[in-house]
């Protein structure tokens, strides 16, 4: 399979078309370059003359647009009205409720509001920048948060939404152990148990104090909790026509395809979109 791209190129008549070239692409792409751009700026600043393996700004913009479309709910913008009820007296609401029911804000509107408030609280745009979605290498759940948790009076580092069997309001000194270890039944005895070479490497459970601190950690914010992209994660490239590996690249627009059939299909679209 590895030499597939080469075979295709050797027999390719299509390469004679002006402005068209297809290059085999067998190397592994440098991590993130094949991915959704980190932010708009990066897409804008992408070098104009691209080398093989790099994406053009145009392609990055395309990927970003596609992901936005995939995240939408529904085919197009829709506003379905609440069906009108006949013969029903208008309900009385409290001012809070009236405000909430009238709000047509989307999640994204609320999120923007939240980030703006957070930026103010944390002192300036720099702090807010840390929470922007685009910052892939962003902070871990800020140390500052741990500090808050640690500095809360110990009495408040107490339990949390779940219920414990024991009375949760009892004083700190009497707190029951967080884990009693029943989840990990001891393994059956084995003659090799005392063999130093077979000594267990299973780590010790954290102390109760450590566990209580973990349980008292405040919730993270929406963006803090999102999984972080690491540059060493492998990426894969697919044929945009049939979904097989994208081993060949259209030099005109950078689109990947697998072989000649798909390449011809792509070319029709490429010509329509970008001209010959």
């Amino acid at each position, binding site marked *: 399979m590895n030499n597939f791209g080469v075979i295709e190129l050797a027999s390719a008549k299509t390469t004679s078309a002006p402005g068209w070239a297809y290059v085999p692409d067998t190397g592994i792409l440098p991590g993130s370059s094949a991915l959704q751009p980190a932010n708009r700026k990066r897409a804008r600043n992408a070098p104009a003359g691209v080398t093989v393996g790099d994406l053009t700004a145009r392609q990055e913009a395309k990927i970003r647009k596609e992901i936005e479309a995939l995240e939408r709910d529904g085919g197009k913008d829709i506003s379905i009205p609440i069906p009108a009820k006949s013969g029903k007296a208008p309900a009385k609401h409290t001012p809070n409720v009236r405000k909430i029911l009238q709000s047509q804000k989307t999640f994204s509107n609320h999120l923007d509001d939240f980030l703006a408030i957070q930026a103010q609280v944390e002192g300036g745009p720099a702090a807010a920048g840390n929470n922007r979605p685009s910052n892939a290498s962003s902070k871990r759940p800020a140390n500052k948060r741990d500090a808050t948790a640690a500095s809360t009076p110990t009495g408040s580092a107490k339990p949390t939404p779940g219920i414990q069997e024991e009375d949760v*309001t009892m004083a700190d000194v009497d707190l029951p152990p967080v884990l009693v270890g029943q989840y990990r039944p001891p393994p059956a005895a084995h003659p090799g148990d005392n063999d130093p070479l077979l000594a267990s490497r299973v780590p010790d459970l954290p102390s109760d104090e450590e566990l209580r601190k973990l349980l008292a950690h405040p919730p993270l914010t929406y963006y803090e909790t999102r999984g972080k992209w690491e540059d060493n994660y492998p990426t894969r490239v697919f044929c945009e026509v049939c979904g097989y590996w994208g081993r060949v690249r259209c030099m005109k627009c950078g689109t990947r395809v697998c072989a000649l059939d798909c390449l011809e299909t792509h070319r029709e679209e490429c010509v329509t979109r970008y001209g010959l």
Partner: protein
Amino acid sequence: MAGGRKPKVAAPARPQNTLVLDNGAWTLKAGLVCGGSIPEPRVIPNCIARDRSRKIYVASELDKCRDFSEIQFRRPVEKGYLVNWEAQKEIWDQELFGDKAQFKCDPSETRLMLTEQPNALPVLQTNCDQIVFEEYGFSSYYRGIGSTFNAYHDLQSLFRTPKDALTAANTPAEIMLVVDSGFSHTTITPLLGGRPLHSAIRRIDIGGKFLTNYMARLISLRHFDMRNDLYIVNEMKEASCYVSADFKSDLERTWKGTRGEKREDYVSGAGIVKDYVLPDFHTRHKGILREYDPAQHAKSRKLAATGHSEEDVLTLRNERFTVPELIFRPSDVGMRQPGLADAIQQSLHELPIGLWPGLLANIVVVGGSSLFDGFIQRLQKELVQLVPDDCIVRVARPADPITNTWYGAANMANHPNIEKVVVTKQEYEENGSAWIARKFSTGLLTP
């Protein structure tokens, strides 16, 4: 339950009934737990829909819809969070308190247990609390992260290990890691005694909605435009997609090959390719998945040529497994997020290594997107490759991953100490919504 005979005289009496509500983006799960007995929850579409003839259906009225082509949806829950109360109230009023309600629920005498997704925006939580008390007037209320309720099950029977005498359903499991793969996203929540370890909660922004949109895009590129038929595409996704155990091999076996080449696997379908007969909403109300039959295709091409084709058939090839693959590799569509196994590893790295064995041996996967065949096997396989050798990895999916959260919350409602975690209407009136927010988020039991 204890206290069942208590006369109802004292003002803030402990309510006998609990309305348990798992308010998802795709469906809401609702049921009334009365005096300790747990009914089967109703699973209701959490949407307002409009069909091609502009007829509007609210929630369970969708049953009456006969033609789902080009149907559109408005959902109160967006990105997993309850955002639009105008729509949500319409649905709750009809399904929980109105003529469609299958139980009688007087909020002033009822405790409400409501699920939410982790890392919600404070303003949305406050909106919710205000509606619960100021509009509906529930007697008391507990709002908790959906995943946490999954601790209120007998975990050991799920993993088929010998039952511990101490383990009762309404005692939270000591340690577990819950993966909730729903409509809006997939979350990872490690739990100790049913309580979330907030610093280690992680999310990837891939859920059923994203997968359906992606499938619609692939079909639109390869066959015909279905981007306005997401309801139909979703059904097709549910019927046909699976998580591949060996992605490279499956991709190889479904490739058509170079020009003119007739690869054997491609011609035969290699056991992967299936036909999906689309619904026409006249003779066929629901699509049908069936074995790929090349001979049948030749025949129907002939019929189509003479204008006698009776069915619209889509042949599904690599779409069957490249779609759910996004949960494991969001980067396949260029999304800069880790796959599920990597995200679980990121979650573990927030925690002391001593907790890893317990978490990894007790992974429970819930949510509608976990229903794809091969999901738990693939997750197990990838995790084993990522984590230290001496950690045992066990991944389980409950019998019904859609209602498991609801049943867990119902079990918790029966816990003798439930009153300690709820907020009463009186407390709300005295302390306000900021206080509730603090109590629910940090678990402070006193102001």
